[in-house]
């Protein structure tokens, strides 16, 4: 591929996001069209204007492509979401026992109390975060060519469950401080998306590298 001059490069993050959500069949044309129009706009109306335009196109394109990709393969996407949900339920039960088994195995409580306290509290949250990341990877691996669609679906389901659950706790107890836990829950949903993005990025790299060489 011919490198563009630095000033005429579209925003890297927007390019990466469009690539993440575009079907491999359409990726070449969509990325090429966006770059062509970006270059035209940058030389006509300035780089800042062109970059804003690119971001607007990126957001609108992603917003359009995600539901379209779901409509094209609704059953396999739903199966991926349900499978991911069940996998997470299964793995979620193992996080705490696994962490405490390791802590007891190495007698952390006796010799390193602060470390024990960290792993017994924040460590469990991090453990859950890792399982969500893993589930995101698994769901994306199973969804060929549409990695991000089931990952988004699953992330939204967990985020919605977290919001409903937290509001129910607040309504029952009147304790608003419990809402801070939502940041961890949203981080869990985000970890699913990161898992999907990792798989998609690796697959894209694997398919484009041989032809570039």
């Amino acid at each position, binding site marked *: 591929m011919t490198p563009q001059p630095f000033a005429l490069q579209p925003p890297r993050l927007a390019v990466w996001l469009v690539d993440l959500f575009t079907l491999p069949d359409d990726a070449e044309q969509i990325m090429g069209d966006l770059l*062509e129009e970006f270059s035209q706009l940058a030389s006509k109306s300035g780089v800042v204007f062109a970059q804003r335009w690119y971001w607007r196109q990126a957001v609108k394109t992603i917003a359009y492509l995600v539901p379209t990709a779901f409509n094209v393969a609704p059953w396999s996407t739903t199966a991926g979401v349900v499978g991911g949900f069940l996998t997470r339920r299964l793995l979620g039960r193992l996080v705490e026992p696994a962490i405490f088994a390791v802590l007891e195995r190495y007698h952390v409580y006796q010799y390193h109390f602060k470390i024990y306290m960290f792993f017994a509290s924040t460590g469990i949250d991090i453990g859950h975060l890792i399982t969500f990341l893993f589930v995101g990877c698994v769901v994306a691996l199973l969804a060929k060519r549409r990695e991000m669609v089931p990952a988004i679906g699953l992330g939204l389901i967990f985020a919605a469950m977290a919001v409903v659950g937290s509001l129910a706790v607040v309504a029952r107890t009147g304790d608003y401080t419990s809402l801070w836990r939502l940041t961890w829950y949203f981080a869990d949903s985000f970890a699913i998306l990161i898992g999907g993005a990792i798989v998609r990025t690796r697959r894209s790299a694997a398919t484009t590298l041989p032809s570039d060489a």
Partner: protein
Amino acid sequence: MADRDYLGEFEHIIVLALLRLEERAYGVTVRQEIELRTKREVSIGAVYATLDRLEKKGYVKSHRGDPTPERGGRSKRFFRVTAKGVTAVNRTQRALQSMTEGLGLIQRYT
């Protein structure tokens, strides 16, 4: 039944844009033609999703052009309307005309 299908609103607009552009029709020109004539900003994702759907229905055909440097070495995908697509756009156009006939929409609502 599929052969009696009408085009959706955006499908209709896209097919008309392809007919206007003839052999120059690819993502960028289609998007710009629609923006120019309808004055609404259209995303490239919406254009391709609709073109893919139209191609599956057999209303349009596509072929790849050569890679060009201004596109970072990526190729263009050119589209053209098939005979089946022309029939579908005519059918849709006639249905719309028949539905709006006698309503005087332009005089009444502008």
